[in-house]
């Protein structure tokens, strides 16, 4: 049942003349949590932002290579980034709920994507999936910014899930949260992978070990260009890495 949902082939990314990512090849498995780990500046976030074409927003970014999703190349001009982003959602490092009500935050994605059906039901469903319903069911009309940081991040997850994506990209989703809120998010990620494939960037190796099924280790070369060292079952990467650079990194010999 190890079906891949994303197949990345020879991915190269430049920002103007600076190459940020070199020759990445990886299969992202469906309904699994895949963690991207590595030191700062190794291109993990860049990689993540290629998958939903967010790099299009950076004027000088150039992306070469294939990212196949449902048999189609995300980078081809035939596909509309708007369409891709509604199928591949993203949760950001810093919780960024809109300064609107809790309800409107979750409903936003439904409305803009022309959802036909009961928005109320769908909002409730999404908030339940994000384990936030019990906290907010009596105050859906309250402003989202009154929630705590951890609740805000779960609201952002609910907002992403409402659009019913096949893949959810998470860029260090817990790095701005306290340890308790972090744990709640980690539990949530494990629960959610039964319905959505998750790719998560994290600086925290223990976190990667705790929540991911598969791990990809990235490094940065002397030209500050990122590349993938190896990728595999999380268990295997952490206990029996094939590459000695991976081993040095996870045992903390350099960071």
């Amino acid at each position, binding site marked *: 049942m190890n079906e891949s949902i994303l197949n990345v082939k020879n991915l190269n990314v430049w920002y103007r003349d600076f190459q940020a990512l070199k020759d990445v090849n990886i299969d992202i498995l469906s309904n699994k949590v895949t963690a991207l780990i590595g030191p700062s500046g190794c291109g993990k976030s860049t990689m993540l932002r290629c998958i*939903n074409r*967010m790099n299009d*927003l950076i*004027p000088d970014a150039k992306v070469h290579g294939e990212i196949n999703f449902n048999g189609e190349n995300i980078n081809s001009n035939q596909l509309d980034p*708007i*369409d891709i*982003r*509604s*199928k591949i*959602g*993203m949760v*950001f490092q*810093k*919780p*960024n*709920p*809109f*300064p*609107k009500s809790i309800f409107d935050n979750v409903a*936003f*994605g439904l*409305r*803009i*994507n022309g959802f036909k059906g009961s928005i109320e039901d769908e909002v409730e469903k999404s908030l339940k999936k994000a384990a936030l319903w019990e906290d907010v069911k009596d105050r859906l009309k309250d*402003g989202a*910014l*009154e929630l705590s940081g951890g609740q805000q991040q779960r609201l*952002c997850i609910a*907002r*992403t899930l409402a*659009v019913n994506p096949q893949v959810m990209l998470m860029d260090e989703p817990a790095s701005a949260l306290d340890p308790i809120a972090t744990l709640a998010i980690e539990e949530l990620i494990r629960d959610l992978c039964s319905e959505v494939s998750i790719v998560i960037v994290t600086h925290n190796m223990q976190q990667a070990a705790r929540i991911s099924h598969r791990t990809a280790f990235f490094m940065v070369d002397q030209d500050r260009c990122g590349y993938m060292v190896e990728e595999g079952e999380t268990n295997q990467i952490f206990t029996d890495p094939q590459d000695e650079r991976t081993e040095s990194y996870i045992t903390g010999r350099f960071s």
Partner: protein
Amino acid sequence: MIETNHTFNRNIKRRQNLGKLFYVLLLLFSLVGLIGLSALLIQILRDGLPYLSTNLIFNYPSRHIDQAGLKSALFGTLWILSLTALFSLPIGMGAAIYLEEFAKKNWITNFIEINVGNLAGVPSIVYGLLGLTIFVELMGLGRVVLAGALTMTLLILPIIILSTRESIKAVPNSYREAALALGATKWQMVKGVVLPIAFPGFLTGAILAMSRAIGESAPMIAISALVYITFIPSHAMDRFTVLPIQIFNWVSRPQAEFTGLAAAGIIVLLTVLLLMNAVAVYFRNRYQVKSNE
């Protein structure tokens, strides 16, 4: 005792006194504006209050002091303001949204930006002459409300564009990214997220711009050139006068009573201005949203 070669001249008393000195100095500076404004207000109220009557508001201009009013000027001002708001707010905000959210950064947009900035500093009489040449003469509108409003629109457009752009710039990028990541088109993102957050800022800019418009007399003198108007403009193609012109005219009369009348006119002008601002402030506070930033 521990030997140390760090010597300090801590002199806490002196540092604190210096701090107090600057506190007092800065307070005085900020009071200068306030004192100036209150002196002006007191002067105007003292001169104008005795002349403030229903006659002033419901009568047309007259040579006879006890009958003279500024009805035509008041309604002329309201006409000019409404039409100017109608033209300038959508155009100015549209231009600002385009420049901020949609335009590619290249030499053309740079050129537009620099010129918008420059236009905000052009003396208002230049706009008056421009309006006179283009709207009154070339387009053949005549010295009418529409020509005045169009001229005023040109005058305050740069102000609206600049202030609107500032309020759009103040919207954190993280909100834009969040909207786009949900599959929003650029317009959905602007309409659903950026504009609601920037709205209170728009209102502030609109207040500033309309306040500028209500007080401008030079371009209106160029366009209207009339003081003695004994009717309310009934449509956009009527002749008109505005409050600053009427006040200016009264001030320049030799009789002392007309100076008092002018002061009363200024009170009316300020009241209109304050009412306008109050409405805008009310809406701004209603739509003010808290932000994480």
